């Protein structure tokens, strides 16, 4: 993939609206045939980025190349791409079939080709039998599929999707997620997909582009984002429940890796990496905390604990765990599971000699005992 030229190349693109919002100095490469997810909180510029690629917005600065062609100021129709809108943007006065072939007709495709392509698109999206309905006579999921069919019918190599599932209920969303992913792989198209739902991003993406305030926070595959968040923001955004982030000066100095300044440091730990032990267990170290509540989810239990001087932490324990609120516990973790971030700028810090923090060797041997004794 590295040797191939990227399918989409965005080079230092800015699009700033009145008021200073928008996207700033964006650069990214998207390989051919990949499923790329633009992820970020509301208002971070995901849609703007997508619209820049689509040509619905024109960049103030920078260049956009698609398939080796500079399309920075080309109109959408010259970029051979299709798009699925959040609202689906189906034409309400046209039937399902007319909606799907709208673009083909506009491009004056031959009659019989339109026919075969329509049949294909209907079959692939499972919409056979609905051709003559108007969008208003369809369910939300069916409308979504019409939008999808309209996007794939022209056979464009690039498909852009702006939160296409946000109007569906949770169960349907899960199913359609898989359908879209399958479809993308079957057709071998490149998909740029916008969402603010990190589960969606993690489950679908080859590459996740995490954005914040109009800038890219991190680019990587889902595992990278989860295991090695580049910033405290990325750490807090990806994962459910999110990573616990607490200022390091609330921790005992012994757990701070050498060479770090505890006063300008954020400590992060994934809920599943947090080890809880009740008072009897005599660990050489442990952070005292109080259980404030729990959520039982079937396969696992989330425990919420209060740590003095912080906003508290979340622990994820397998199975069913019953600890009444108010119980005093002590928290610990395997040294390598800790994430350290710069307190001020939030970027990731790597301990100079990894895995040599004081507690590392002492704790690793008994990570599970703590939970099972509870």
């Amino acid at each position: 993939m590295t040797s191939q030229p990227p399918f989409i190349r965005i080079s230092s693109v800015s699009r700033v609206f009145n008021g200073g919002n928008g996207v700033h100095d964006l650069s990214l490469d998207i390989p051919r045939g990949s499923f790329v997810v633009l992820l970020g909180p509301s208002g971070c510029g995901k849609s703007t980025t997508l619209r820049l690629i689509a040509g619905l917005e024109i960049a103030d600065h920078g260049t956009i190349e698609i398939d080796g062609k500079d399309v920075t100021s080309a109109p959408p129709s010259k970029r051979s791409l299709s798009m699925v809108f959040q609202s689906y943007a189906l034409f309400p006065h046209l039937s399902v079939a007319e909606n799907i072939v709208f673009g083909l007709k506009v491009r004056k495709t031959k009659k019989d080709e339109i026919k075969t392509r329509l049949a294909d698109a209907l079959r692939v999206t499972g919409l056979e039998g609905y051709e003559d309905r108007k969008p208003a006579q369809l369910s939300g999921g069916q409308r979504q599929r019409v939008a999808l069919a309209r996007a794939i019918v022209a056979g464009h190599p690039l498909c852009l999707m702006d939160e296409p599932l946000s109007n569906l209920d949770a169960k349907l969303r899960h199913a359609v997620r898989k359908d879209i992913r399958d479809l993308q792989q079957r057709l071998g198209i490149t998909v740029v997909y916008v969402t603010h739902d990190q589960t969606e991003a993690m489950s679908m993406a080859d590459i996740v582009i995490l954005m914040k305030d109009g800038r890219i926070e991190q680019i990587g595959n889902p595992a990278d984002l989860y295991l090695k968040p580049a910033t405290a923001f990325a750490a807090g955004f990806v994962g459910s429940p999110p990573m616990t982030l607490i200022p390091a000066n609330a921790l005992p100095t012994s757990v701070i890796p050498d060479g770090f300044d505890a006063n300008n440091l954020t400590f992060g730990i994934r809920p599943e990496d947090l080890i809880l032990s009740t008072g009897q267990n005599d660990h050489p170290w442990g952070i005292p905390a109080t259980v404030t509540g729990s959520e039982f989810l079937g396969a696992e239990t989330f425990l919420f604990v209060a740590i003095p001087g912080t906003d508290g932490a979340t622990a994820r324990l397998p199975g069913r765990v019953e600890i009444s609120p108010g119980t005093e516990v002590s928290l610990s973790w395997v040294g390598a599971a800790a994430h350290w971030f710069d307190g001020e700028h939030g970027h990731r810090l790597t301990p100079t000699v990894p895995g040599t923090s004081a507690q590392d060797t002492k704790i690793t041997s008994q990570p599970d005992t703590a939970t099972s004794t509870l």
Partner: protein
Amino acid sequence: MNEMARLQKRRLALYGWMLAAPALALMSLFAFYPAIATFWHSLFSRGTSRRPSVFTGFENYGDLFADPTFWTVATNNLIYAGVTIPVSIIFALVMALWANAHIPARSFVRSAYFTPTILPMIAAANLWLFFYTPDLGVIDQITGFFGASPTNWLGQPETALASVIIVTIWKEAGFFMIFYLAALQTIPPDLREAARIEGAGRWTYTRRVLLPLLMPTTIFVFVNAMINSVKLIDHLFILTKGGPNNASKLILYWIWEMAFAYFDSPHAAAMTILVLLALGLVAVAQFRLVEKRTHYR
């Protein structure tokens, strides 16, 4: 159980009638009864102090058809409708499209278009009377600047009707524009974007998406324009009084003349019935034809 359901149904029907009753009563009093009374009146001859009015059947109608003025007035009104309806609708649509686009001073453009609507027709007519004044009026000033000789726009048969038509369009287009503007604003902008992505240009989008979606509004505006083409005659009183030589006389003005200038109410009544008949036929045809091909959301 079954009995209950039937009772329930009957009660609902009763509620329906009760709700409709006030409107129905008013309609009967002010619309149906006058229409029938007018029809009845049109079947009698004109009564004078010496000759009381007698039942003459459809003689009044026969008189009308025999009167050359009838044909002049009917033709005038057909031309008047045939021009004002489509032209004001097209103007309204184009103005709405423009005022809805992202242009500088958008709200100014909108209110400028709307101004003619809030003027009473009489005031508008006075304004145009000034525009049309031979030699001194704005129009002659402009044409005069290019060397044309002064024209008596309202005073000669060739231009009188056209001048009246222009005033009507000027008055109506802004009003209809408001409806189009309102309809345009309910069309989500991402339809436009979806169409653009699918390769549709401005014209294709307008023709394939915008106009069909505006169709309900167009029908509404069309019906209004049609009613106005019969109803709107206020400006005739100021501008031409139907003259010269009936060149700009419209049906309703003629009816008014017959009834209140010549006090010939039976003929006026007969003419009114003819107009009602014609309008009714057009309305039915319209609903039959257009309704079916329109998409309502």
